[in-house]
């Protein structure tokens, strides 16, 4: 029973991070219909930037965190400006190939600087952050994952629901010609969605880096994990991404805990195939509102 609860909590915290990172992926897809195959590399970049700032530059942790997020924001913005914008209106496959190319470029760049080694962050989470309720013990990093994840989820939720820029962004995802007709700066919205997506990827990268250590290959392969998550949740649903993330996180942890650690990376994909057989649009794909 303790073991079950332990796995449940670990699974939910990891799943939350998957969901958060998938949310960034979904956001880019919703606003500009681009499938971003470089998502995992951006996530890894966030983790390494934080590492560099916290260890090489010796910045205070909080400052390193904020600067990393700012850096990710700028990176997302610049990627859209330089690489994606010239391809607006081009066939989907070209855009996908571009993001695949970007992925290898980033990966190569990070390997050049950090190599394939495994790094760890200095200990900075206070011991007191952990939960110790007798049978259940939650290490500080999982508590931090849930707190940071919820905080940013709430922040983005408020942004999209109430701020004007958030509403403009949703309008572009909803009906691009109508948004253009009202003067919404559609290209700015694309850039902003890349920037925000890079920020959430960066956050997930840092927290996953605390949990598993920081390694270029490990972290960028999480980009692949985004696919079962978003396909499960529906490519166009933000809340679906979070729930999809939780499901994949739980599946992984339980498979690893009860069956075998070597199966943990396969089971999500097997589940995915079965779910798609039953619900081709994912569990939370948007229900199209149609009326005459």
């Amino acid at each position, binding site marked *: 029973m303790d073991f079950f609860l332990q796995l449940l909590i670990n699974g939910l915290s990891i799943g939350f991070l998957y969901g958060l990172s998938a949310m960034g992926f979904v956001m880019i897809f919703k606003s500009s219909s681009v499938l971003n195959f470089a998502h995992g590399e951006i996530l890894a970049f966030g983790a390494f930037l934080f590492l560099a700032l916290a260890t090489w530059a010796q910045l205070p942790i909080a400052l390193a965190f904020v600067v990393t997020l700012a850096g990710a924001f700028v990176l997302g913005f610049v990627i859209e400006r330089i690489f994606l914008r010239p391809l607006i209106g081009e066939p989907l496959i070209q855009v996908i190939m571009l993001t695949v190319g970007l992925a290898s470029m980033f990966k190569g760049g990070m390997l050049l600087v950090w190599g394939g080694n495994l790094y760890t962050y200095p200990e900075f989470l206070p011991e007191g952050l952990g939960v110790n309720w007798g049978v259940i013990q939650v290490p500080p990093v999982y508590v931090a994952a849930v707190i940071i994840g919820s905080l940013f989820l709430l922040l983005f939720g408020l942004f999209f629901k109430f701020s004007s820029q958030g509403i403009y962004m*949703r*309008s572009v995802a*909803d*009906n691009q010609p109508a948004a253009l*007709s009202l*003067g*919404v700066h559609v290209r700015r919205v694309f850039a902003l969605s890349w920037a925000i997506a890079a920020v959430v990827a960066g956050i997930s990268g840092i927290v996953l880096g605390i949990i598993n250590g920081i390694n270029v290959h490990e972290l960028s392969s999480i980009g692949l994990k985004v696919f079962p998550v978003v396909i499960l949740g529906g490519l166009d649903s933000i809340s679906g991404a979070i729930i999809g993330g939780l499901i994949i996180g739980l599946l992984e942890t339980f498979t690893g805990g009860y069956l075998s650690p070597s199966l943990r990376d396969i089971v999500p994909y097997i589940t995915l195939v079965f779910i798609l057989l039953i619900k081709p649009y994912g569990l939370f794909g948007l229900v199209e509102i149609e009326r005459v």
Partner: protein
Amino acid sequence: MSEGKLLVINNISVVYSDVIQVLKGVSLTVEKGQIVSLLGSNGAGKTTTLKAVSGLLKPENGKVTEGSILFDGLPIHNHSPEMITRAGIIQVLEGRQPFKYLTIEENLRVGTATRWGKPYRQDLDMVYHYFPALTKRRKTLAGYCSGGEMQMLVIGRALMAHPRLLLLDEPSLGLAPLFVREIFQIIERINRENGTTIVLVEQNANMALQIATYGYVMENGKIVMEGRAEDLRENPDVKEFYLGMGAAGAAKSYKDVKAYKRRKRWL
């Protein structure tokens, strides 16, 4: 003399995808404060004309290849929609296109995109004043509204941008007759009370010519007739082909159509 002219379309040609020529030398003038109606059957090029003005040709791979469009004396043809909307021209697209997954009020807020950061409370009140029916529905997703409510919504959304020139593309299309009357009354009020200049594209020539001061008739990418609205209403061709009143009250025969075609060539 020209300071009364808000929009001057000067002999423009429009080509889609570099090969499909749709407009062939269209000229049209809109005076400040007027409602100008642009009539014509399906495929005549009315929507294309509006999009040439609002800059929305670009995303459809269309282009003004000849002629010029002046807004308040400044050339705007082939400019981006971001620039043109900020200059004060807002087009309400054909076929009612709300943001389905946004609430009514969020839809209206998108209308503030051209003046982001400025207060908009008063403008919401103004829209609810013109369209009281939207007030109760402000928290409803637009996708769940009726056709009539959607039409009110898209016009209201455009008003949020404080347009100096409002381009309306077939606002009456597919609406119940009672509702059509109401929408036209409101369009007329917006023009009168806000002083908004309006270009009204319609197939419902009868209603359009009642509120317009001036009208143009388009066929096959050309203007084939123009005149003051009350003159157009009395014009036998307009009566026969756009107001659905045959000269002798008889159904249109093939011969009549031939006669019309002859006249059109002559024009």
